[in-house]
């Protein structure tokens, strides 16, 4: 019963949040000066008043803003996201065709970070203030502090230019090998550097989060009790310390998962990865409103969804959450 209420409440909240996001985004993107017609004119080094007027009329950009907003919200509610001003193709198609590339990149980085980050954090915590801890803490600080594009360019210089081990950009070779397995391997090789670049940033965050949470938990009374009971050290660490230290990790993983859709603009730019973050960035510069709003919407849906999953997981990890605070 409580779960059902939670579900219902969540759905109402999600619907309201998404509607607010649609309206807010619509207003935000219109704050920027200029429109798609002026961009196209600027790019072609020739402008013709007929062309400008026709372009604006074709997409209804000459109508008053409130009317445009109403039309847009109405269209979104009927699941029609419109066409791109620039390519005149349905934006839903454009977003969907770029989505797999982004999910592959952010997903790989996510899994890599979740596997490596907490493990390093635990290691640092149980070896606190010893060389291993120092090494991990410093490395985490470095990868957390260095801008992603800088790390990316360094990796390209080192692994592609100097060593020639890995391809520096793109998602597949120009002449892809034949055979499904060979093709998958080819994409995997292209994936290594961007996923590593993006992943290391998150590894650093998880390592620091985990280490901090572990050390904080380790000093609590119930851990001392567990040790006094004579439990073996590995049991104390896994069953008592880690279970409680996991809560901030789950929370942050939920946040990162929300970024799976739009959170890789920099990595996609440096590595020419044909994903959705880059699509959104270009759409913004080109004032391709429909396309930009579609990416925002997809990204908002992902965030809302993962917030929900995070809430569920936190309830499972700690039964006290959600039981109180009625």
């Amino acid at each position: 019963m409580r779960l059902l209420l939670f579900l219902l409440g969540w759905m109402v909240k999600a619907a309201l949040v998404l509607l607010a996001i649609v309206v807010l985004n619509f207003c935000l993107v219109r704050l920027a000066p200029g429109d798609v017609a002026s961009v196209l004119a600027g790019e072609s080094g020739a402008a013709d008043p007929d062309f400008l007027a026709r372009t604006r009329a074709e997409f209804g950009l000459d109508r008053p803003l409130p009317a445009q907003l109403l039309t847009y919200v109405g269209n979104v509610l009927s699941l029609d996201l419109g066409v791109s001003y620039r390519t005149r193709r349905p934006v839903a198609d454009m977003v969907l065709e770029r989505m797999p590339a982004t999910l592959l990149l952010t997903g790989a980085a996510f899994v890599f970070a979740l596997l490596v980050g907490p493990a390093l954090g635990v290691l640092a915590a149980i070896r606190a203030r010893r060389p291993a801890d120092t090494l991990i803490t410093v490395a985490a600080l470095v990868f957390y502090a260095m801008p992603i594009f800088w790390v990316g360019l360094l990796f390209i210089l080192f692994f592609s230019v100097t060593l020639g081990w890995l391809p520096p950009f793109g998602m597949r070779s120009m002449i892809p090998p034949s055979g499904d397995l060979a093709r998958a391997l080819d994409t995997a090789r292209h994936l290594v550097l961007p996923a590593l670049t993006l992943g290391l940033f998150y590894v650093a965050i998880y390592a620091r989060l985990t280490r901090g949470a572990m050390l904080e938990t380790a000093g609590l009374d119930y851990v001392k009790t567990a040790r006094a009971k004579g439990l073996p050290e590995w049991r104390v660490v896994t069953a008592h310390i880690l279970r409680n230290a996991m809560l901030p990790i789950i929370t942050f993983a939920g946040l990162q998962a929300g970024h799976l859709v739009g959170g890789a603009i920099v990595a996609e730019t440096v590595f020419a990865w044909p994903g959705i973050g880059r699509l959104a960035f270009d759409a913004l510069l080109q004032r391709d409103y429909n396309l930009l709003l579609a990416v925002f919407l997809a990204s908002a849906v992902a965030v809302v969804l993962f917030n929900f999953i995070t809430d569920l997981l936190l309830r499972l990890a700690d039964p006290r959450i959600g039981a109180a605070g009625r």
Partner: protein
Amino acid sequence: MINSTLWPEPPGIVLGINLNAPTLLPSTKMFEGLMTYDFDLKPVPVLAESWVIAPDGLTYTFKLRQGVKWHDGKPFTAEDVAFTFNEFLPAVHARSKTTFERVKTTAVDAHTVQLSLKEPYAPLIRSFDALSAAIVPAHVYKGSDFRANPVNQAPIGTGPFKFKEWRKGEYIHLVRNDAYWQAGKPHLDAIYYRFIPDSASRALALETGQVQLAAQTDIEFVDVARLAKLPNLKVTTGKGWEWNSTISWIEFNHRRKPFDDPRFRQAVMFALDREFMRTNIFFGLAKVATGPIQASSPFYETDVPKYGLDLAKSAALLDEMGLKPDANGVRARVKLLGLPYGELWNRVSEYVRQALGKVGIQVTLEASDVAGWGQKFGNWDYDMVVTFLSMLADPALGVSRTYVTSNIRKGVLFTNTSGYSNPEVDDLFAKAASNTDEAVRKQLYSRVQKILSTDVPVAWTVEIEWPTITSAKLHNVTINGFGPNDSFADAWLAK
């Protein structure tokens, strides 16, 4: 097979419907014009074998090449040319529209077309290249909505390369046209245009041999000199960009004081060290501009007022106007709208602020992105603005648009946005456009250049010498005035 960089990803790849700079590179391989133009901008036959211009300049007769096939196998005929000039270009081509609205084209027979005009139009003979007038297939476009025609997704032309695939966000793939009209050409099997958003990554792609070609704005100028030193790369500067001929300038809004006073505009010219800009901002990939017409043009005039760096003269002009320095040494406060095309242009803005500060003109920089820049510039909402523009093959096409009164049109970029208006200049430009005698035109344009260089409607800074960077193994990329925007029928890759 070669790889080329291409950024940004173009909105479409049909010449005429799309005119954006990134459209040109792939689409010029698929579409052809009646002619192309050599380094001196003299006509070279392509789809036209020969032509005759009547002495009164009102009739042009073209003999078309025979045996040319469209990529779908249909024959190319006079019908296609007549359709392109009469219907297609006036409807879609923002720049050539005005040229071909003057012309009526008739198909005399399958391989002859006749163009007739009401009055002579000198730049017409320099308007038949692929960028200005690519011939499109009538059997595909006739009677359709040109912009929405599905064929635009997989274009059909007569050029040496055919469309194969466009992977959004990744690359455009063209393949050899085996039925190309020049036997034995092209030499390349395929061209891939790869979208690499980051200029540092593009430079790395050239270094590692992942791509064999980058041009114009693909590589930051600061990197070009470094790449030129590498043994596996070749850098050509300026050559191949004769048709494009880009001049950069600082434009003044004449509707606002003090920009309406030529003395102020001259003072700005004397305050700028354009030689410094050439070497330190453009890294030598530029020439100091002396006026409205580029040095490579047959109509270029050297005998015009020169503006070397002269701070004393600059200050004297400002004194004469009555712009005295106040307690802080400031004579005037003005805004400068920067050009949002990367680091180089930010440095131009910063340099102008510094240089004008020395003579007491306090400049506040305004930043924006491409859309914002276009909006403000087109709507005359600026004091001064950094810009650059192509001068094209003839001053009547590329130069006069910036200075004639009849082209003051609010809300439209690349028109006479400064608001400069001078009846004598209008008259000279009009006469030069309708006179087909080159010697007479040269005299008229010389007069125009003398007047404009005195009036300084805009402060010309440099003529940009765009770089073309190729693999040392790639040959015949730059063979005429279009450089990498030529058809690549002759390009070949050494083993």
